[in-house]
């Protein structure tokens, strides 16, 4: 808006310049959908190291990054493969430090959401009634239990510290070149993650004119002024789903789950789908008809909303 589209850049450059070794990174925060796997793969190609993945769920993305040696810490609620279950790379790293150890900062989905909300909105902490009685309070010393200062009777409350990720990468159905984006369907922790992060990369399934986004400001989940870079990456969330755009490629994730059972199998998978594929465009070409079959072709349009002022 009112300026050059200087945020629009290539996926390679966004990852090279905005995600640094040692960063804490959110790769998708909608839980199961809209996970920017294209960035997961590019992080692996660029051999980033020491990443701390802040992940509510993010399906198999975190498991891939651990296996590839990029992620050495997890600050999150769940790491595995949503349809397959266990994450084999996560297991190997936690159980036998293969290919390396992984530091685990345990959260639950709600406490992670409240931590990101606290980060987004400058709250000193977020008080929650969850985690009481859970050993997560023991495995992660970042939480603090206090007696509710507002209560006359003893009432333990868990204080969750704010989380401010270095980078959040969020896949959206459409954005303009300044990072103003529309998102619909369930959003998990995406709003909190975008507003809490120091840098935001938007992975747009489609780049549209600013007028399209401005036509519906209530569909904006986070404003363009928090966005550092916008990448045009059609199907950048494959194999995860995106409302109205892409079905989930469950077979792909199941195949990953099977192949990653062994380190050799994982390396073979990585070679085939990531390391021997130069970029996202080549990945899409490799998927070919399979990707086309995942494209949602039907129409179930939202009822019109009018913003006219006169």
């Amino acid at each position, binding site marked *: 808006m009112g300026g050059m589209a200087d945020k629009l850049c290539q996926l390679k450059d966004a990852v090279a310049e905005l995600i640094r070794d040692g960063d804490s990174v959110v790769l998708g925060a*909608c*839980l*199961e*959908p809209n996970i920017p796997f294209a960035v997961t793969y590019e992080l692996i190609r660029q051999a980033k190291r020491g990443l701390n993945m802040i992940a*509510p*769920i993010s*399906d198999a993305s975190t498991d891939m990054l651990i296996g590839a040696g990029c992620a050495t810490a997890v600050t*999150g*609620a*769940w*790491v*595995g493969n*949503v*349809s397959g*279950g*266990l*994450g084999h790379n*996560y*297991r190997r790293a*936690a*159980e036998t430090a293969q290919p390396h150890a992984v530091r685990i900062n*345990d*959260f*639950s*989905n*709600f*406490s992670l*959401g409240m931590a990101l*909300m606290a980060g987004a909105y400058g709250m000193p902490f977020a008080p*929650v*009634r*969850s*985690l*009481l*009685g*859970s*050993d*997560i309070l023991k*495995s992660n010393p970042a939480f603090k*239990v206090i007696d509710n200062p507002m209560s006359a009777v003893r*009432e333990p*409350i868990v204080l969750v510290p704010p989380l401010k990720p270095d980078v959040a990468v969020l896949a959206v159905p459409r954005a303009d070149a300044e990072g103003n984006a529309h998102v*619909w*369907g*369930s*959003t*998990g*922790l*995406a*709003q*909190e993650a975008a507003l809490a992060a120091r840098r935001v990369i938007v992975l747009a399934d489609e780049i549209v004119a600013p007028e399209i986004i401005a036509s519906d400001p209530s569909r904006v989940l986070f404003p363009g002024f928090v966005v550092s870079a916008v990448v045009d990456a059609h199907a950048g969330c494959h194999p995860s*789903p995106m*409302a*109205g755009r*892409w*079905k*989930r490629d*469950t077979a792909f994730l199941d195949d990953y789950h099977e192949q990653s059972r062994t380190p050799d199998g994982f390396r073979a998978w990585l070679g085939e789908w990531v390391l021997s594929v130069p970029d996202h465009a080549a990945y899409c070409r490799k998927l070919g008809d399979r990707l086309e079959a995942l494209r*949602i072709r039907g129409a*179930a349009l939202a009822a019109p909303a009018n913003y006219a002022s006169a």
Partner: protein
Amino acid sequence: MSFSTQELMIVAAAREIRDRELVFVGMRLPIMAFGVARLSHAPRAVGLFECGVVRYAPADGTLHTMADPPNQLGAAWTTGTVQVMGLMQGGRVDAGFIGGAEIDRYGNLNTSYIGGIERPKVKLPGSGGAADIAAMAKRLLVIMNHEKHRFVERVGFVTSPGWLAGGEARRRAGLAQGGPAAVITDRAVLRPHGPDHELHLASVHPGQTIDGVRAATGWDLKCLPGAGETPAPGERELAALHTIDKDGFWR
């Protein structure tokens, strides 16, 4: 009428949902259970999913994850995790379903670490939303397979608090409400009993025996007074299930 064990589990789980209740629904069997309840005895139950989906009618289409496009289409509300879990923290959610890798005598669940935190024997995926549902839903409903190494005296790590050490332990920990109300397995239904809240055998599934269930349980499982056989799915329940399970995946 024939039915599979999984179908029986789904129907038994569906029966735990009452009409007009708000239910936090987990993946796989619970999502089917919610659908069966809606289409049989609980036409005004509401399903909440931690990704931020709230639904009245069950989704039309197979779901591999709770956020798959069929679960978004025609939802009552698509919003964020903080909103739906916040409603649960506020005491609005009547029941929540979770599973687990390990459960103990008091309904505590482990989905985090088996064999210690530092170098675990098995690193499980972690809580996801399970710890929150166990802490904040007014009733916790558990679905899992019944195997001796999963039904243990005491879980090594409490991801999702049940009745903790039993008795008033849960309340003393600061959890003002909730706690496991039923554990539905592939062999039986267990329920907490008495002021101690220890899980007892409430019913055994057709084809199972009390001794068999006890042998698959890692603690000295007691029977509820009057424990009998889990009622088989009724015609209406199976019809509802077959309406949802178009592909016969759960048969």
